[in-house]
């Protein structure tokens, strides 16, 4: 009696003492009447596979298989999470360098900088328009401006930075549209109930939709409040958190302070349902879920 075993390193044929008869590829058809080993034979097989002559193949074939597995592991969630995280990083980055740009530019033309609040508009305008024209727009005569005369070289350095800032705003907005469209495609129910910004952050925290699906609603409710939660669990005198990033949701924001915890809880329940429907490719019912949520507290 002989046994067949399919290992990652190929086919292996064992005799009834579980010694290796032959190892190679497409072996089984050479041997008539091969038996499937049962559970308690497996131990002996695992032991027979310890032979040093198999090690090189174990390494090589596991590397090859794992490369394919890693390749196939990439899902839309990975792209969503990168885009969502990039958005947060861009906000920090843009904020830092635009502040620098303002400070620097104000040596040259403080009046124009002060006349315009939006950072984005500011970068856009100074990147494309001439300084004289900007002064004209705010009716300032160069002679009465606090701005210093600076060399073309200095001006150029400042405007280089302005153009890069403008480019980063463009990148930010295209990244946002990209993330939103992926979220809409893959998580339509979650998007409707949470809004795409919070939907993205929920996925970012969980890492993948699969993990979000496995989470109990009570965990979703507290995503983003991990620090407060740990503090509470170590020391019960520290109050338990009521919500994490769900706090940003209008449904929680608009509730009375004393009701916010309850609202977050109900919202988390619906989000949990929404993401499950998305993950298992159920039919779209986001509007209904949202309506149910709102009605629950309007009575």
């Amino acid at each position: 009696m002989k046994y067949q075993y399919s290992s990652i390193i190929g086919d292996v044929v064992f005799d009834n003492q579980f010694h290796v008869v032959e190892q190679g590829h497409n072996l089984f058809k050479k041997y008539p009447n091969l038996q499937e080993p049962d559970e308690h034979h497996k131990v002996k097989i695992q032991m027979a596979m310890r032979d040093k002559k198999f090690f090189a193949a174990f390494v090589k074939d596991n590397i090859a298989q794992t490369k394919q597995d890693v390749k196939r592991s990439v899902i839309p969630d990975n792209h969503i999470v990168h885009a969502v995280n990039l958005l947060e990083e861009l906000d920090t980055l843009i904020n830092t360098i635009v502040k620098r740009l303002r400070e620097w530019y104000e040596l040259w033309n403080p009046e124009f900088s002060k006349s315009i609040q939006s950072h984005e508009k500011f970068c856009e305008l100074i990147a494309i328009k001439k300084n004289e024209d900007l002064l004209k727009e705010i009716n300032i005569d160069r002679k009465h401006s606090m701005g210093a005369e600076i060399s073309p070289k200095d001006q150029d350095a400042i405007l280089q930075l302005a153009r890069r800032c403008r480019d980063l705003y463009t990148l930010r907005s295209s990244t946002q549209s990209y993330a939103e469209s992926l979220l809409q495609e893959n998580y339509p129910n979650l998007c409707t109930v949470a809004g795409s910004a919070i939907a993205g952050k929920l996925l970012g925290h969980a890492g993948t939709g699969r993990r979000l699906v496995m989470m109990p609603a009570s965990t979703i409710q507290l995503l983003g409040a991990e620090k407060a939660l740990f503090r509470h669990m170590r020391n019960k005198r520290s109050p338990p958190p009521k919500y994490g990033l769900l706090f940003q949701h209008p449904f929680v924001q608009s509730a009375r302070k004393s009701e916010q915890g309850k609202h977050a809880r109900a919202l988390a329940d619906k989000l949990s349902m929404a993401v499950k429907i998305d993950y298992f490719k159920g039919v779209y019912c986001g509007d209904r879920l949202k309506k149910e949520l709102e009605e629950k507290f309007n009575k």
Partner: protein
Amino acid sequence: MKASKLQGVYEEGRSLYTQNLAPGIRVYDEALVTVKGIEYREWNPTKSKLAAALVKGMPQMGIKPGSIVLYLGASTGTTVSHVSDIVGKEGIVFALDFAPRVVRDLVFVAEQRGNIAPILGDAAQPKTYAHRICAVDVVYQDVAQKDQAGIFIKNCREFLMPGGFGLLAIKARSVDIAKKPKQIFREVRDQLAKEFTVVDYRELDPLEKDHCLFLCKNR
């Protein structure tokens, strides 16, 4: 540089080293030291729980030149690379992790060394990778999961040779953050003692806060 009590592990002053199986290549940011033409990699006990346990006095670890090791929770290969140095060309390390992101880096490490077989898989489901490995001399596990001890016992039953060693790193906070670490460690110890002979046990504070490492021997 001198050999320590443990085969394949070297010491110089208070630092531990392993002989670099892939000379010239760093795996993380460890120091490389060449003595008499042989290159060693410093084994940092704040980055590797196994090194931490040795620094804290664990007298043996069951891993030696030629060993066959199943490493669960391999991550990007920090500790795995030192285990790979120790078992050397005659040994093999089956290194498993379920996170594709870290396995991507692990594959690069495996390709440089020739004795690491990387696997993308879930340690809680030994049947799914049984055909990719063989019975082993040592099971090492560091997965920071809720049912750490249960997963470990399952893998040892499935793959560990009689008389083989099991090393289990426990992170108290992933079991239950409300309980005292000491109590969790005691519970795990009792759970392990039903199955194995618990040979040694080291708390890793302050090198790794609220962690400990168990060394067990299969009966």
